[in-house]
């Protein structure tokens, strides 16, 4: 039982770290530069 708990915690940390790396990538790429425009863009037909 203890082993499974440890495995699960380590697994969740790994998953979390993967998301965190994506977040860092997004900040560096400037994905948060303008959060206003993209939400209108999807309504454009072309």
């Amino acid at each position, binding site marked *: 039982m203890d082993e499974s708990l440890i495995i699960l*915690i380590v697994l969740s940390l790994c998953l979390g770290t993967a998301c965190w790396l994506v977040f860092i990538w997004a900040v560096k790429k400037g994905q948060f530069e303008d959060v206003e425009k993209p939400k209108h863009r999807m309504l454009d037909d072309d």
Partner: protein
Amino acid sequence: MTKLTESTCSHCGISFRWKAIEIEDVDGGRKSFCCRGCRGAWQLICSSGMGSFYQRGERVTPTVNELTTPAYNESDLAQRLIPEGEFCRFDILIGGISCPSCIWLLERMISGIPGVEHVSLSYSAGIASLSINPLRVSPLQIFGVISQLGYTPRPYSPEQSDKDTRRERDDLLLRFGTALFLSMQLMAYSYALYAGYFQGMSSAIKQFLQYVSLAVTTPVVFYSGWPFLAGAWRSLKTRAPGMDLLIATGAISAWVYSLWATFAGEETYFESAATIVTFVLIGRLLELSVRRRAMSGISALYASAPQRATLVEGEGHREVDVEDLHPGDLLLIRQGDRFPVDCLLIDGETEVDQSLATGESLPVLLFAGDEVRSGCVNVAAPVTVQALRPVGQSYLMRVASLVQMAQAGKPRLQLLADRVSGWFVPFVIILALLVGIGRFALAGEGIGAAVMSALSVVLIACPCAMGLAVPAAVLAACSRAATLGIILRSGDVIERLATINVALFDKTGTITRGEPQVISFEACGGFAEPDVIQASATVEEPAAHPLARSIVRHAADLGFLPEDCREFSNIAGRGISGILPDGRRVLCGSEHFLHESGVDLRSFRDITQTSATHVLIAIDDQLAGLYQLIDKLRHGAEEMVTDLLSNQIDLGIISGDHQATVERIAAEVGVRSARGGMTPDQKLAYVQTLQNEGRSVLMAGDGVNDAPALAAATVSCSLSGSSDIAMENADIIITGDDLSKIAAACHLSRATIKIIKQNLAWAFLYNLIGIPIAMAGLLTPVYAAVAMTASSLLVSLNSMRLMRFKKNG
């Protein structure tokens, strides 16, 4: 006489009652436009295949008014290109963007210009970043397209400060994202540990969870919390304990205590350290995004100064750089040009728009021998002037340096949170030391246990509630203010605003609308009213004078549209004349002008309202009518004055206009103190004098001439649509036309301070109970968990009450 029904412009969508410009659409339908500018924009859009723009639902398109050419020249703009690989980068600040459709249109229209490789437009800032091929397209061409669509392009060079803000925000975002991610992980372990405390848990698992907690908390405290640690270190060095010190002490003590507890097999408080850092980071991040829209105002002022001047040399003219002008140089200033330096009018007479210097919208008639300040616009006729000062010492640059000086010398108010932590932090630390020493020396405990009880005092004394008390209230207040149409530049404005006891206002453009409006019209001498209105609209139509514009607008509102006027002539400072299509000659102007022209003024009745400006109309040398115009008060002005006075705030009007006019307006709104004829430096000096008397000053203004005073004031306020430099020096921007929002902002700030004090009081109550428990060494995880959650929740909910703040108290 032509009377028209209402029609709607196919481009900008406004309803109007003058004669539409009509063209035939490709599919045979007719399109009508309110002006040539709108027709031009429509043709441009349709010919570029962007016709679907008009099918978009929500659309706010600016009226194009005139076919304007941007006031920039090729070489100035070419200097702004930044080479990047084989192409050049070119940034444009675009004014007039009001809806997502504007972005859609502009992006497509600009990227359709041959030679433009890439465009990206930011909605919030209105800045277009272009990558262009300078061999195929010139920046001026791009400016041409943008202004043809009715938007105003301005060159934009990203200031260093702007880049710094961006880097700061990215940095903060990374720290916050990391803190949030790790805190969420941590919470899971913490709840497991809470449950284990009550139900029992094998010590191996407990130990393991504590190790993992330690691993995730350490980066939160030392990486995410680094800004607070650095701030705390700075405040220790300067011996000015502030909010940062409080947060850092709280986080570090919780971390150190828990580190010890992990290895000693005690209960840990890692979540306390992590939540303090995460919550306070949210506040910082939101505050920064509010601040980000601010741009450097000084650069905007430089942009309004002309770059080139026409030097008169004997018979010829030569274009020179304004930097190369020397006092004594003769310059030719064409109609519509700005005066590049302070100069003396030596030949000709003209009307000059001095709004930059005095804030007054009506042009002033100047003769040879009069002095003109740089930045003013020559409205009526070309004149020759002699330069008095080099450009660096001229009016515009003097204002710019005044603003810089005022910004630097602005008194900094010590914020409530800093004041509180100023005595609270030393108090807690001394208390903790006493507890530690007491336990070690008197109770004879081991050194480890003594240090831990000292740390537990600090830990319990710096809870989340303390860290949240101010940011939560400020955030709620800022978002409530935004929904009321009050934009606050930063959170600390609220605290400064609550201390205000003097409010100063500029007159023209702030208390009043800044443009004359027709309040009455009377026909006389047997002329029919519609006939005279029609005639005056026709001859006033080509004139650029604000009085003429108001008369034309007044006529248009009544449904009269200008006809073709022949032999139009504008006599500077006096009036205009022109010939109607039916051959009658019309004169419009002052009493003096008509009298000079030989019109019999005996039928001109005594004027009842002396404060109004009068425009007389004569048809074929017969007095035909009289317009009275007045610069009306802004909506909500009287309401604001009564409101502020009832809150013991002294009011004053300071203006560049004549003393008598200022006094009249002051009396009208109910303000006792009125000072006229003030230059920008006198306004600044007045604000500073009041501040030296120990008062906090709110300054509201809209013009370039108010900018130094705005920069120096404790809180500055500007209305949207003011000059750039005024807006950028404003702590508060009021959107819309309602001055009573200024009073609402004052009320909101006072309400916020009340909430902050309640929050702090609660945090103290918590300490009052918590510290003795910690001192007695009875701190248990149950108490800590319940108290922490309850106090944070209470503080947050209490702050949310600001969201329901009503405008009228």
